[in-house]
């Protein structure tokens, strides 16, 4: 099957990534074949160093592959310019990071509004940011800065930021790694709802079995290769 066909949102063939430090080459991905369809809730699991974050970075056009082919949202990422990649990230992708990575000098509402501003959304951006904040139950926290929020609250704001512009694909790197059980469950439920209601495709890298139970597909990476690809 050719990558990027049928209704696949993401398609990779023999995707490789080698990190080079001085003369030392460290392969992170050793030929990954993967298909993710629109609307899927996919977990990428595997031990540390198996290549989960690297794969997410490549799918998110944050990094360039060393070899193989990767088609995301119908476009071959390997042939895209830096500007085109930035544009795709801005308009069609959302990111949730393990360490939340909210802008510390902006309030929760401003963090959400910031992405909309970068997208060039005009007067409607504040209204849209408030809607998202409200939908995710974050209204009481809207005026607080990240330093005044708990880890769970910060990660929920990060999700709000990621989905504010209703992207087609959200990539989440270990989103529950720093959260306790209750907060992790709230977050996962929130993302699951967004997946169902807005048909946003989610891909997580995770060690967390709670995430895996929510996933519709689980891709297991071992030593930079897909060891298992299970649809549930």
């Amino acid at each position, binding site marked *: 099957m050719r990558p990027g066909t049928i209704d696949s949102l993401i398609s990779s063939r023999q995707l490789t990534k080698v990190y080079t430090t001085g003369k030392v080459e460290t392969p992170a991905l050793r030929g990954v074949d993967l298909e993710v369809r629109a609307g899927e809730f996919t977990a990428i699991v595997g031990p540390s160093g198996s290549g989960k974050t690297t794969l997410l970075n490549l799918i998110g056009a*944050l*990094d360039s592959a060393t070899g193989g082919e990767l088609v995301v949202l119908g476009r071959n990422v390997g042939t895209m310019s830096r500007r085109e990649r930035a544009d795709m990230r801005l308009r069609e*992708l959302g*990111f949730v990071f393990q360490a939340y990575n909210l*802008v510390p000098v902006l309030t929760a509402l*401003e963090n959400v509004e910031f992405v909309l501003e*970068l997208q060039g959304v005009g007067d409607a951006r504040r209204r849209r940011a408030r809607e998202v904040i409200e939908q995710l139950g974050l209204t009481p926290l809207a005026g607080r800065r990240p330093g005044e929020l708990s880890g769970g609250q910060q990660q929920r704001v990060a999700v709000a930021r990621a989905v504010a512009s209703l992207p087609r694909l959200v990539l989440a790197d270990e989103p529950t790694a720093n959260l306790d059980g209750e907060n992790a469950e709230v977050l996962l439920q929130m993302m699951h709802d967004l997946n169902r209601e807005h048909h946003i495709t989610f891909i997580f890298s995770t060690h967390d079995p709670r995430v895996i139970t929510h996933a519709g597909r689980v891709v297991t990476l071992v030593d930079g290769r897909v060891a298992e690809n299970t649809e549930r």
Partner: protein
Amino acid sequence: MIGRISAKYALRSLGRHPRRTILSILGVGIGVAIGIAATSWIRGGAEMQIRAVSESGTGHLRIVPRGWSAERDITLRLAGGQDTARMVAAFPGVANAAPRSRVNGLLAFGNRNAGVEIVGVRPEVERRANRIVYKSKIEGRYLRPDDRGRVVIGRTIADRLRVELEDDLYVTLAGADGVRGAMLRITGILATGVRDLDATVCHVTLDTLKEISGYTGTGDISILLDDHRRIEETRRELALLLDQAEVLTWKEVNPGIAANVDGDRGFIRAMVGVIIMVVGLGIISAQLTAVMERRREMAVLTALGMKAGQVIGLVVIEALAVALGGAAVALVLGGTASYWLAVRGFNLQALMGPDFTFGDVLLDPYIYGDFGPWIIAYALVLSVAATVAASLYPAWIAARLQPADALRM
């Protein structure tokens, strides 16, 4: 384009390290304030020198016979000099038009003599237009329009010849038809306070000079303007009206002073340039540190889709805020220093002794700084230009951050 939230982000980021921000603002402010004070000083100094040279006989402009510039031949005369002087005196923006003629001569008393340039003047104009006349102490009196055969000499010449008021000097000069001699009675001895300058003063009326030299007509007309900034404009307008004459600026007549003024300006510009460069390096260092501290944050913003131009915009907005703060500090410090210089002045006598001349120009012992609205524009332009320019390298570094590399940290 930078939006409201981006601007908030940039400005609030300055508050993360208030001490660093305040030091950056102070660095810019003090550097630009030094630039303002130095420029105020040099503008005041240049103003003083221009005023001094123009009021010491050179004028802001000088009308000379065509061909004078080539050899500076003082025997050349203007066609219709008196009429031209009257026409020029009535010209818009002209404060004074002083017609003069000159011959070289030798003053003698007993067995002592002194070589001088004898200058024929119109006394009523000279009293107003020539600071060597109106700023000096005069023993006796200055010339009157109807004075014939009378001379005013400088104190140094009087001392050298050992003469007093009402003594008769024998003058030998190169006349129109050969060497001539005449007697001149001393009606005044003029003391500028500067011995070298007092050795050059020898004034007679235009009519007297015509009688003793045989040269008719006016040698040149020195023009003082109400506003020296209109020199070039007035020169062009006069040049259109005068076919047989050249209109020279004070710079062309007195290139020594012009070179001095330009040299001072050049030195101050270079000095300000060095100060601003040092300040700029400080800003580069501070902003680079700020960018490197926020590598991860910048990487996240880039990951979210912020484009290189927007990243650069953020860093430049931060720099702009520092620049405006620096400009405010510069206005307070530099403005105060300039105001003090403008009101109190600086007495050069304390540094350079009592003699203030440059060639035959009587300089003022005090330099007053230039204080005016230009300081606001200067502070803003210099602060913004230096700071924003210095921010471009850190901004470029920030824009080049690879999000994946920075996020791995």
